[in-house]
């Protein structure tokens, strides 16, 4: 029966489905070709634009295809032919789910798998990326299927969908407006424990919603009663949002073994001073909170490691025994961050690259980290006081490794796991940038955050290196806002052109290096992998610290 229904639907919708597959294939080809054309600016713009247009066309096609396929055997009303035939309702629901799943989920995911295979992405990573894509697509199909199964025609489907989107927008705008009207009553939430953002959470949520919505569609087919199916869908949505918190989350990778020694990675307050800037207090009024900063560093890190500090809690005790109790401060640990280079990381880079002078795009301001986050009134009361400072910090560790040294010429390429980089063009006239084809695949299902890569132009003869700035070359993306789901995700498969720009900032702190064609002719390209390698907790206890208020 299932096969019979499938055959009939396939025959009925053969042309739309053939078109669908053709567009999926065309989109995959455009995606695959895009990084190959990175060296040809107009061609790359045309191919990447075509890819985005096809991607959006596929999403819009889903809005049309899902309802017409579902409503060929409507689950509402009393006039449908199939309702008076001996066709089990659950079989019709299953047939629709299989058909939509095969074409709307499996076909695009298979295309993505082929793309990843041809790009030599490791199979395990490709499976994780494909699984994540499948879950996201399944959610969209399930939502459309739920709407389609509770409406009798395409116009009603469109109306219901528009009403739901409208209701969501009203709710979102209303919530934001209410929050604005009420104003802030609490300081920003503090970090209680070092943790990574739960990358699994959106996947769990998508999966929960998809399963809930498909089951709601099943209920509609079984009962043909919207008064049962619609509340069931609402319950599934609410349950998914609340349920995800109870599911396991990704734990940060175990810190390296050297962290077992408390001599390594010790916290050091270079200057016994806490500085509180009253202007930084927030929110305004009596309940304002503020952070006093201090010059704190991490000592005795092994070579190639850099650290980033996040305050967990801190206190300041005056000689009379009065204590200012602080709380944690800072956002959650987002893993490696190429923006966080500091003088110590400059040192690490020098060691890695084997040069004396390194120019980094952000010279850094190491040491000025929030060390005591407390009520502004308490901090002001203790102005100019000297006391004992105790703090507890999460120290997130990042490992830097040179993974490849490439000649600075077109065609030079390297692949590290699921990251592939090919130099497509060198700006020899200006001598300051290169265009590359970049392919990367990462997934929220990865057990550890994907490494990031830095690119350094290094001139050994002059013992100089300049850290490049990697930016996507896709300046204009003709995506449809709110429809091109997945494009805002940091995970997934990306195949694009990127520019690596080498610049020497005009700053007293940076060495004076003249980047010209002669400099680049002697240079090579050093690829550095940054790997987030865990979080350790370190404490700092300084008996005599002065609290300055400005």
């Amino acid at each position, binding site marked *: 029966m299932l096969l*019979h229904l499938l055959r009939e639907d396939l*025959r*009925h919708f053969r042309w739309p489905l053939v078109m669908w597959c053709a567009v999926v294939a065309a989109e995959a080809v455009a995606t695959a070709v895009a990084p190959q054309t990175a060296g040809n600016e107009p061609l790359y713009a045309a191919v990447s634009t075509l890819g985005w247009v096809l991607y959006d066309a596929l999403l819009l096609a889903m809005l049309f295809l899902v309802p017409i396929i579902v409503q060929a055997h*409507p689950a509402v009303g009393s006039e449908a*032919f*199939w309702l*008076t035939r*001996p*066709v089990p309702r659950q079989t019709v629901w299953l047939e629709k789910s299989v058909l939509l799943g095969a074409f709307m989920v499996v076909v695009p995911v298979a295309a993505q798998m082929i793309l990843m295979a041809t790009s030599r992405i490791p199979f395990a990573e490709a499976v994780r990326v494909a699984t994540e894509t499948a879950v996201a697509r399944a959610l969209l199909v399930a939502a459309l299927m739920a709407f389609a199964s509770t409406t009798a025609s395409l116009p009603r489907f469109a109306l219901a969908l528009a009403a739901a989107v409208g209701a969501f927008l009203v709710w979102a705008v209303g919530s934001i407006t209410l929050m604005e009207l009420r104003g802030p009553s609490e300081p920003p939430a503090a970090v209680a424990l070092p943790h990574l953002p739960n990358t699994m959470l959106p996947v769990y949520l998508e999966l929960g919603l998809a399963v809930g919505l498909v089951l709601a569609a099943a209920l509609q087919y079984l009962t043909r009663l919207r008064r049962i199916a619609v509340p069931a869908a609402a319950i599934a949505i609410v349950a998914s949002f609340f349920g995800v918190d109870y599911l396991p989350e990704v734990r940060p990778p175990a810190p390296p073994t050297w962290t077992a020694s408390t001599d390594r990675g010790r916290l050091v307050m270079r200057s016994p001073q806490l500085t509180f800037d009253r202007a930084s207090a927030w929110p305004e009024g009596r309940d304002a909170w503020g952070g006093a900063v201090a010059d704190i560093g991490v000592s005795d890190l092994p070579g190639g490691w850099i650290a980033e500090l996040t305050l967990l809690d801190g206190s300041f005790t005056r000689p009379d025994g009065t204590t200012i109790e602080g709380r944690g401060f800072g956002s959650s640990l987002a893993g490696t961050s190429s923006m966080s280079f500091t003088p110590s990381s400059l040192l690490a880079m020098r060691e890695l690259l084997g040069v004396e002078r390194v120019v980094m795009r952000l010279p850094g301001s190491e040491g000025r980290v929030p060390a005591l986050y407390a009520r502004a009134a308490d901090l002001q009361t203790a102005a100019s006081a000297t006391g004992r400072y105790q703090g507890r910090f999460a120290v997130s560790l990042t490992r830097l490794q040179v993974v490849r040294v490439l000649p600075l010429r077109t065609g030079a390429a390297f692949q590290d796991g699921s990251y592939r980089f090919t130099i497509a063009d060198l700006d020899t006239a200006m001598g300051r940038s290169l265009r590359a084809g970049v392919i990367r695949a990462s997934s929220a299902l990865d057990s550890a955050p994907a490494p990031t890569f830095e690119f350094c132009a290094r001139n050994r003869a002059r013992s100089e290196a300049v850290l490049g700035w990697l930016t996507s070359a896709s300046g204009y993306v003709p995506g449809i806002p709110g429809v091109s789901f997945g494009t805002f995700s940091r995970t997934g498969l990306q195949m694009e052109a990127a520019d690596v720009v080498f610049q020497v900032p005009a700053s007293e702190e940076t060495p004076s290096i003249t980047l010209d064609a002669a400099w680049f002719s002697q240079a090579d390209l050093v690829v550095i992998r940054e790997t987030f390698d865990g979080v350790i907790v370190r404490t700092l206890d300084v008996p005599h610290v002065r609290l300055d208020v400005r």
Partner: protein
Amino acid sequence: MSAAIETTGLVRRFGRTDAVNGLTMTVPEGSVFALIGPNGAGKTTTIKLLMNLLRPSGGMARVLGADVRRLGPAELRRIGYVSENQRLPDWMTPAQLLRYCRAFYPSWDAALERRLQASLGLTQNARLRSLSRGTRMKVALLASLAYRPELVVLDEPFTGLDPVVRDELIRALLDASGDRRWTVLISSHDVDEVERLADWIAFLDAGRLRFAEPTASLLARFRRVEVVSDDPGLASRAAAHPRWIVEGIAGRTLRFVDTAHDEPDAARGVAATFPGADIRIASMPLREIFIALAGPTPPGVQEVV
């Protein structure tokens, strides 16, 4: 006599309207049972309730022994259903529709299919959406008879069809049944065709069943009576009779319908009511009975039920 369909106090409400109101009815197995009644009487709603296309608001109904709320594939394999309101898969050609349906029925009779196809003159190979209404109904009927169902449910199958197509449909239905008597439940406005087909008639009005009885008994029961007399109290005497439906009085002539003329001494009762009058009693075709019942309700008509 066992029942193919049985309802007890069946109710279906739409908002505050009772489309079907306490319907208690039995369709005998092997009968051709016609549901007639004016527009909005509840015929289509009743049939949808019996086919589990609508859920009853109250009461009980059984079709082929199964509670209609649980009517599933096993029962639907034994039921053929054709309705003027049905949304056929109009992207299919007749041949495709038959192929589509064939897979659902182990009892599909290919020989009967061919015979019906020939008798209905179904040779078109265009999509259903481009076929005439009559041809679509023929295809629907063929797709509902070829597996030899035990119960055939026809909801207004003749509406909007020309007499030739109606005749073809009826002949196909009779031809398909062959020696074996199927139970047929048919709702129709077309009382002439119903009279040809049905051996049981049920009359629905405003969701209520006025009567259900064998056609022969119904035709025997109803008589048109014309009374010609100088008596000025003709109308009032007729109106006082609980089983008579007064149709009107013109000059010296009173016309009414006797709804119980099959009772013993009915003719004598008429004569006794109008002594000395000139009385003509004529049998009534179903069409006239329908019009008499479906017209403005005269006093005492509820007694007819």
